[in-house]
């Protein structure tokens, strides 16, 4: 690489490779988001007359329905994240550490199956199981446990369950890959030093798996807060999910300026939550999600 020609060629290759990346990120990610921010600062004062200001954001702050929906979306998503971790961790541990070599791959693939099926179909399946005339209700009636059909859709518990179902895989995958890299001897050493199962889990396994835990939590939280289909289909039209408000502003009311402001609020809100999570756990974005 000492010859100038080779160096030039290498620089040319770098520029050529950088082009598609730059076009993609600039045109489809950075510019649209800047545009959305500018749009959110616009306000219609008369037909075809716009003024710049923070009115869309002030409107958001002054209407309790809006920020209550945002807070609800945030808290429910945190609950979903916590439950996904609670349910997913033992599964990931089993796959990474307990299952034999052959079952391991099969179990991992089995975990991924719902990933290949559309959100819509998964929600549709839950509807068929849980609604008043659904499979579970009729089965319970047929077995004589209940006398009248029960409706299990359109409540918060079902929305949480549906969201956990949709996102739990994104918790399991990073957990399996970090736990896979953990040496079994570390766990044994913990036992040999007199630790019981709980201490070993708390002092050895969890600290080791922390990057995976945080990566899983970030992805799961973002997916849950940004989801649209599951809360609407399982929670009904009044599930008060924030993405629904964005859709409402954009499509139903055709108020793009306010919709853009809402989109930005959601982005900001989720970013702050993720940032707080990183700070509290002492991790960085590059040590977790962007781990190379």
């Amino acid at each position, binding site marked *: 690489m000492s010859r100038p020609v080779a160096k030039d060629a290498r620089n040319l290759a770098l520029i050529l490779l950088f082009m598609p990346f730059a076009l993609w990120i600039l045109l489809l990610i950075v510019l649209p988001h800047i545009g959305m921010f500018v749009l959110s600062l616009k306000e219609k004062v008369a037909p075809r007359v716009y003024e710049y200001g923070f009115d869309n954001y002030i409107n958001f702050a002054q209407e309790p329905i809006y920020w209550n929906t945002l807070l609800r979306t945030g808290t429910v998503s945190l609950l979903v994240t916590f439950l996904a971790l609670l349910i997913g961790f033992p599964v990931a541990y089993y796959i990474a550490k307990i299952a034999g070599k052959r079952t391991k791959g099969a179990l991992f693939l089995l975990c991924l199956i719902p990933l*290949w099926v559309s959100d819509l179909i998964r929600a549709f*399946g839950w509807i068929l199981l849980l609604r008043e005339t659904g499979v579970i209700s009729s089965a319970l009636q047929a077995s004589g446990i209940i006398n009248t059909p029960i409706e299990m859709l359109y409540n918060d518990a079902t929305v949480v369950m549906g969201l956990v179902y949709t996102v739990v895989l994104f918790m399991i995958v990073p957990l399996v890959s970090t736990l896979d890299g953990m040496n079994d001897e570390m766990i044994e050493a913990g036992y040999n030093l007199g630790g019981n199962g709980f201490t070993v889990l708390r002092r050895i396994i969890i600290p080791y798996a922390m990057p995976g835990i945080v990566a899983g939590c970030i992805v799961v939280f973002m997916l849950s807060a940004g989801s649209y*289909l599951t809360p609407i289909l399982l929670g009904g039209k009044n599930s008060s999910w924030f*993405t629904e408000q964005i859709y409402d502003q954009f499509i139903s009311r055709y108020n793009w300026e306010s919709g853009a402001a809402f989109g930005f609020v959601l982005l900001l809100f989720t970013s702050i939550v993720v940032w707080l999570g990183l700070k509290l756990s002492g991790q960085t974005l590059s040590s977790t999600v962007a781990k190379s």
Partner: protein
Amino acid sequence: MGQSIQQPFLRQSYRLYMVLFFIFLAAPLIAAGLFAFNDSLFPVLPWRGFTLDWFFNDTEPKLGMFHDRRLLRGLYYSFIIACFVSMLSVFVGTCNAFLFVRHDFPAKNFFYILMVLPLVIPGVILGISILAMASNIANSVEKSMGIDLELLRPGIFLVVLGQFSFITTITSLIITARLKKFDDTMEEAAFNLGASKTHVLRTITLPFLRPAMIAGGIVAFLVSFENFNTTLFLVGSEAPLTITMYDRMVKVGSTPVLNAVSFFLMLGSALLALISVLVQRDTKT
């Protein structure tokens, strides 16, 4: 393996937990698929016997999916969109892999995070931001030059762009992981034997990457096929399948023809997933 759990009782309950978890995962998919074969006008119990009408029957009220014009059209649009998205995203993903594995440049870490970012931006926001920008450009072009840029109005082109914007992250990650495992001495040997750069790329490096490129393409195809959130905002009159299905679900309610489509899609996904597993296993080095 498994020294950590000695008591047989704990071991059994752990196993039971895993079984319950997989039942939880499978339950809605089984429900969605199974009712495609129930000989009834509604996807509810009791079971009224086996039928294939919801796939092949050509008359109302039991119009099968292969005779339902709107569903077939949705399937066709989904297919076109997914093909474009997977080709584009595999191409850019491959470039990104070379960029981040083979080159060093200032602020590389920052750009890497930028590359991963689209994966965590909510799909709804990707959709509205691209829609807003495209409309903005189309409007100002129309105002200043009087040309209506049909391409930038909601439609297939925008759907492809919207899906491409985050699926490229997925293909980049898959192909980057593979390129990292490449043994540089293989290229060096070829250079020493007098091969040119493009020749080495074509005969050694790209064939090595091929399994990851195929797997990435399949994942991109499937993710594109099942995407809803981003597509919802960018869709024009040519609605892909998920949008058509959602429309049907909201307007008509659940009918077994949706179960038939679900079964068909699950079968297709399973086949594609199987191919990607086989392709990757075949050339494991």
